[in-house]
């Protein structure tokens, strides 16, 4: 299986084909429904975001609390389609890609193609495996949103499948 180190270079992204399985290592940021709403309020008000969008990979996920001695609790992907209305604008702002589960809209696929991005599918329901792939977790924004806050995760050999590649191909 192809191993990829984050952040991804344009060359890395261009070498990915929809359907191939990969193992990701490096830093990803969680954000789901409420965090996206908050991010867009910040953008609308012209406020500085407390983290960098450019070059980042957003993981659509809301983890369980970590047990003592563990970096994270269970942390599998949530349904990406709920973030359809947010993803194109973030990709246009330089977001490198997303990890989630399930199809996203054609607008998202177009934005991925336009920006040489990527959408990875993690295996929905495999929360324990993903929790164990997280080696470090830190809440970096919107802590009041609890599991919906933005967490900076350091992951190692995080299994995923290329769902949408930058050439417009889809696994779905």
């Amino acid at each position, binding site marked *: 299986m192809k191993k990829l180190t984050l952040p991804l270079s344009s060359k890395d992204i261009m070498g990915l084909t929809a359907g191939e399985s990969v193992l990701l290592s490096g830093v990803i940021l969680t954000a789901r429904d409420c965090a996206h709403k908050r991010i867009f309020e910040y953008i609308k008000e012209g406020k500085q975001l407390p983290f960098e969008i450019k070059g980042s990979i957003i993981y659509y996920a809301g983890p369980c609390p970590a047990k003592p001695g563990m970096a994270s609790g269970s942390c599998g992907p949530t349904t990406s389609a709920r973030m359809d209305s947010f993803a194109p604008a973030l990709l246009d702002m330089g977001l490198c890609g997303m990890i989630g589960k399930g199809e996203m809209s054609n607008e998202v696929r177009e934005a991925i193609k336009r920006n040489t991005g990527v959408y990875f599918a993690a295996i929905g329901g*495999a*929360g*324990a495996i993903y929790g164990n792939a997280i080696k470090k977790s830190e809440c970096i924004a919107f802590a009041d949103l609890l599991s919906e806050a933005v967490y900076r995760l350091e992951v190692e050999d995080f299994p995923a499948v290329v769902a949408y590649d930058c050439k417009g191909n889809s696994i779905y």
Partner: protein
Amino acid sequence: MRKIDTKTIENKIYEMALHAGVNLTPSCTAALENACENESGAAAKFGLETILKNARTANEMQMPVCQDTGMAVIIMEIGQEVCLEGKLLQKAVDDGVCRAYADGYFRKSVCDPITRANTGDNTPAVLHTEIVAGDKIKITYLPKGFGSENMSRLYMLKPAQGVEGIISSIVETVRLAGSRPCPPVYVGVGIGGSFDTCAFLAKKAIARDVGTQNPREDIAGIEREALKRINELNIGCQGFHGDATALGVSCEWAPTHIAGLPVAVNIQCHCVRCEKEVI
């Protein structure tokens, strides 16, 4: 009358919630193993292998099998010879859920529908009570994830649409859900009743063990035909295309009005978590 202190119910709910969060039902595991063995799609097979490995990891490490530890749905069949004592039943159930979600390191996923503010302890639980004969309480505990719940639908069919209408509605719901509800799914179907009871029947259907069939032969026929057509959709595990789009279809029924044919389709993801106990 048999007196039961609701503290006993609270403690039982606590144990059931803790166990359900980290374990798939044996019938779900068996269905997943069978699906994995017979899967011809490569990516779908990788998905199924990962799901099975995840279930073992969750059990060994006693961590939630899925981070969506769900809304706690409880169906309580209370014998009418039972006299409940102590705190209010809903409070007892909520206290059991609250303690389990804290002690199990489960995610708290319940929020206000408008402000979206999290209640912080995964309560209130959804509690359905039914009065039945006898002096026992049968509890079904089902933590329900919403990736799949969101893909559920309710149809108010015309009586003339009959069995074909019912099967088409079930298959359409799964087709429209596509890759989003974490297939392979388990499909619970309510047939008949009223708008509200039909949806409840669908929920009861997913509390049945995967692979069981309705005792009514004509209803069991609907289950078999719907499952066959769903698996012909080729959605497959995670939408990666494959043979297993659903692990099973379970239908429950009730008499309905002469003017209507309600059909509710409740989608359950492949993480079937359900506990049953009798007090």
